């Protein structure tokens, strides 16, 4: 069976910088999470899934169609929702007007049906009460939700979300998880996030991208498993550890290759964050992007 999203050996360069280098992956109904440090190539990959950026080489098939062909690209876009990393908004528009504007771009020309859908997505994202407020008066989190609301118009089959939880407070993030996980029951959602706990909470499928290449592709449980036996607590920082930090109880959490058995060390159950940090190696000390 073919997948809803198929990417085969895709490359993309900007000048001398190779953003993607032979990336292949597939995604189906459910949530696929992209993890990787800043500059790993996630945004480039998501822009290709959103059909706004063409690859230099390689093939993409989205929802069974080829985005390189103009007619098929339009068909994909009719079934697509996209939240870019910086979801620009017209500051002078109200939340309702902006989402209504995007609905027009999505070819919803029947006014009443369009307004019904605008109200639906504003309610889904918890914006009904402030739908009449101008965007320039909204908080950062509220603006992110306006960006998400426009992507949900028309119940898209493929939802592409670039850092959708950035700027959301914990309550809004939980609300986001609720909305997106409901959609992902029978639709394809591909997202990138700073938050490994979002990936752990939401994603069945996780892909770690680093320096333009796929470093891991599997389930979140499989990713976590790669760190088994490589996370331990000790009374001090282990010189052989890749990363180490003092925890609240004063002991050091070390991650890396355990090497010679350290004194008074306790192996720990690894987390997805440990596995991610180990995968991206020396770049792991900067926050994940």
């Amino acid at each position, binding site marked *: 069976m073919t997948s809803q999203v198929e990417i085969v050996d895709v490359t993309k360069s900007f000048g001398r910088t190779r953003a993607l280098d032979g990336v292949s992956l597939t995604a189906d109904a459910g949530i696929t999470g992209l993890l990787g440090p800043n500059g790993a190539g996630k945004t480039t990959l998501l822009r290709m899934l959103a059909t*706004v*950026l*063409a690859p230099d080489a390689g093939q993409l098939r989205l929802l069974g169609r080829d*985005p390189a062909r103009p007619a098929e690209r339009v068909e994909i876009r009719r079934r697509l929702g996209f939240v870019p990393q910086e979801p620009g908004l017209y500051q002078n*528009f109200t939340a309702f007007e902006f989402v*209504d504007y*995007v609905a027009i771009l*999505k070819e919803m020309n029947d006014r009443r049906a369009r307004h019904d859908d605008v109200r639906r997505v504003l309610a889904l994202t918890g914006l009904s009460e402030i739908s009449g407020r101008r965007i320039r008066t909204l908080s950062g989190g509220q603006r992110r939700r306006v960006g998400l609301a426009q992507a949900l118009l028309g119940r898209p089959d493929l939802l*592409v979300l670039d850092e959708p939880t950035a700027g959301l407070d914990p309550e809004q993030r939980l609300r986001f998880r609720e909305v997106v996980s409901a959609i992902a029951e029978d639709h394809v959602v591909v997202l990138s996030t700073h938050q490994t706990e979002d990936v752990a909470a939401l994603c069945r499928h996780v892909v770690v991208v680093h320096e333009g290449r796929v470093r891991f592709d599997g389930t979140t449980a499989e990713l976590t498993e790669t760190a088994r036996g490589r996370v331990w607590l000790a009374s001090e920082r282990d010189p052989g550890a890749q990363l180490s930090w003092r925890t609240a109880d004063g002991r050091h959490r070390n991650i890396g290759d355990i090497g010679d058995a350290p004194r008074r060390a306790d192996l720990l159950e690894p987390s997805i964050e440990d596995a991610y940090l180990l995968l991206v190696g020396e770049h792991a000390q900067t926050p994940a992007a």
Partner: protein
Amino acid sequence: MTATWHVDDASIERYAAGAANDAVAASIEAHLVNCGECRAAIAHRADHDRLEAIWTETVDTLDVPRPRVAERLLRRLGVQPHTARLLVATRSLRLSWLVSIGFALAFGVTAASHGEHTMVPFLMLAPLLPVAGVAVAYGPSVDPTYEVTLATPLSNSRLLLTRSAAVLATTLVLGGVAALTLPSLDWTAAAWILPSLGLTAASLAAGTLTSPTRAAGAVTAVWLAAVFATGRELDDRLAAFHSAGQVVYVAILALSVIVVLRRRDALEIRSEL
């Protein structure tokens, strides 16, 4: 307050079917406010589809923001409501208005004091107004919603052309007003129109190869160089605006239209952002 009388069955039937005359309907509605028994009697006779439609229309009227002035004006001019919304979102349309008004006023004042000397600067700068407007009508550096827009099924080349047409219409009207202030109202007062069309089309064509702002910059540079060069070569500062030049602008217009049509897919999916 409890009602001491009730609406008879026949009147309820007619009212529920929407067949009661206005006076009877108003009377029944006033009564229903205070009479739960009659409200219950009418509830199961009501046409639910009709009620749903009325409710949706009511919510839509109360809930939806009133279109802004520019949008209402465009609708009055016969523009489709959804196209009007696409146009009012174009920041450059407002900028074009302001710049064009400023241009018209500046030339009006300058022409009054400097007469003939305003002719060449006017003819040289007027065609650049729509070029500048188109440059900021669309693109990643000027439209905050560019990526979202690109990912929608609406043809981006159509959107760009619609916005460009609006910018062009705006600047042509106000350029025409500025032309009325020129000291001599002969053929030269209209000699900027074909260059405007040609240069705007050329910047759209170049925009399929590079960003709209870079395209407009290149077209502007070539235009100014060409006007100065032909003026010096032929020892006539208006040389670029005589009939031979006008034919060239028509040719540029035609060629640019062909380029835009052939390369329009470059506007739909970008090779870089």
